[in-house]
């Protein structure tokens, strides 16, 4: 049974329909008109316990609105949401015990309090026992280095520290379902790596995760399934590996030859492949269609005839696929 299920989930907002400038504002004052804007359009989504799902899409696609609908912050205009069998909006209090939420662009820390005090307030709010609280804080400290800034006021924290503290706040009650909206936004590489490692461990322990991020490395490192949303509708929903296998049909091999690479000559000799010069004079990049040739065939043929000094396979990039999905170049 899914831990989260959304059916025909729709959210519309009313926006003033007015011309720009002072004249438009005056006209709108006398004659008020509104346009209905659909942020989320009949989305169906089911997440099984323990799944880690990436929810991605371009800016304005409806990601954050969906998260707010799933967490009960917003009421759906149409459709239903059930999280562990409950309506997260009407059964807000009961739902709150089972979910953890992080919005990367905002903090839930009490601004004028030390981090430790915020965590203690949440401990009491969720009714976490002393023993569980101590154990979780120790674990967060080990994985997120919380100790160094626990006594600091929230308003004095750096962005990376604030995000780690917010993550601890979202998880202090060991929620079964965790929503993370842009958890690595604005962070440096080392903090990102640390957060991703922490999230991987969280998933390994069986926590269900829904992650939205523009950083596709977050997605590849943490999630197994990806839901691509665009203009409020689902453009793709399936395993990340399947997305790659289905859409990434062009693969690449980098060859380092003994001498300088003569790209036009090679292209003439092996017209079935694509050829391009590499970064070094002796380097050449060979591309081939994976639905026409196996990697073994390509490598076997090239190594036998060119005897390269070294070679490497380029891993397919999910970033390119998603970019093309956003651009409407690929269809479901």
């Amino acid at each position, binding site marked *: 049974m899914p831990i989260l299920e959304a059916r025909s989930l729709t*959210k519309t*907002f009313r926006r003033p329909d007015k011309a720009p400038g002072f004249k438009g504002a005056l006209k709108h004052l006398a004659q008020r008109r509104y346009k209905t804007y659909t*942020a989320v359009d009949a989305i169906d989504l089911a997440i099984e316990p323990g799944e880690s799902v990436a929810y991605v899409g371009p800016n304005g696609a*409806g990601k*954050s*609105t969906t998260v*707010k609908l799933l*967490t*009960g*912050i*917003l*009421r759906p205009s149409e459709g239903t949401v059930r999280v562990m069998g409950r309506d997260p909006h009407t*059964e*807000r*209090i*009961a739902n*709150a*015990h*089972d*979910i953890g*939420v992080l*919005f990367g*662009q*905002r903090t*839930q820390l*009490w601004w*004028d*309090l*030390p981090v430790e*005090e915020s965590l*203690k*307030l*949440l401990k*009491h*709010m*969720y*009714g*976490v*026992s002393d023993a*569980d609280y101590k154990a979780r804080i120790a674990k967060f400290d080990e994985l997120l280095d919380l100790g160094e800034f626990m006594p600091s*006021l929230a308003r004095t924290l750096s962005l990376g520290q604030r995000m780690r503290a917010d993550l601890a706040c979202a998880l202090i*009650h*060991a929620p*079964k379902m965790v929503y993370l909206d842009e958890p690595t936004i604005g962070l440096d590489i080392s903090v990102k790596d640390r957060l991703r490692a922490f999230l991987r461990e969280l998933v390994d322990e069986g926590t269900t995760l829904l992650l939205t991020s523009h950083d596709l490395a977050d997605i590849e490192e943490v999630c197994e399934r990806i839901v691509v949303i665009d203009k409020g509708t689902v453009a793709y929903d399936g395993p990340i590996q399947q997305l790659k296998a289905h859409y990434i049909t062009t693969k690449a091999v980098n060859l380092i030859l003994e001498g300088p690479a003569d790209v036009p000559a090679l292209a003439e000799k092996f017209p079935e492949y694509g050829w391009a010069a590499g970064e070094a004079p002796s380097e050449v990049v060979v591309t081939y269609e994976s639905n026409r040739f196996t990697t073994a065939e390509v490598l076997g043929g090239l190594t036998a005839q060119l005897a390269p000094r070294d070679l490497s396979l380029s891993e397919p990039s999910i970033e390119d696929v998603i970019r093309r999905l956003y651009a409407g170049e690929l269809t479901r």
Partner: protein
Amino acid sequence: MADTLPLKHSVPVRHALAMYWRALAAQVRSIIEYPADLWVMASAGAVWNLLQFAFLAVLFSTVPDVEGWGFHEMLLLSGLLSIAGGANALLFDGAWSTGQMVIKGDIDYRLTRPAPVVLQVGSSHIGLQSFGELLLGFAMFVYGWIGAGLGPAWIPVGLFAIACAAVIQCGLVTALCAVNFWIKSPMSMFAFLMIDLQGGAMKLPLGVFPAAVRVISLFIVPVAFVNVVPVAVIAGHMSAWWLIGTPVTALFAVVLAAGVYRLGLRAYDSAGH
């Protein structure tokens, strides 16, 4: 989850209030540990009340009474109003941030926690000026009490009036700040108007105002029950029956605040979509 309270669709009142007091206590602890702004803000609150005291002293040096009210009775009025304002700043100052929270989407996190949103917002901040307002407010109230010759028999009534004044002030301010769920303004204009009405009119006996003002302040926006009615009863200017209106108004203010906030949360559509 084994380690969470067995909460279902609502939060037990005791748990909610315990959470609220913990949040306030944590803020007070933090203020004591990091008192940088405390003295400046507390002094500002105190100075404002000293000015009120000076104004009344100057006024009563030229007139013997105002509508039959003497200097010490007027001090009781100003003192109780300051206590109510200080109590609001100490106990529910966060309500003033409702408009900003609505505009910025800062209600979001509060909707994902197992606690009443109105208590989370109200306890999210402490107005440091409250310490000065409360200190000087109590000083004026006690000085007026002694000067007016009120005996110890009235002390329970006085304490009851103070408690009700604090609740009414917090309730009405919160309800008016919650209007910002609909008008989407960072400024709590309606609450400011109420404070303005109190600052201008509720430091004087109701008898000096036309009937319309009396009706508004007693029955429409019942700010008269914060200080004017209880002080008038204690000082013998109104029948003791009027005192019943004070706890009734306090209950009304709490229900109103909770109700308007609940409706506001239904209209809340976050930010950034």
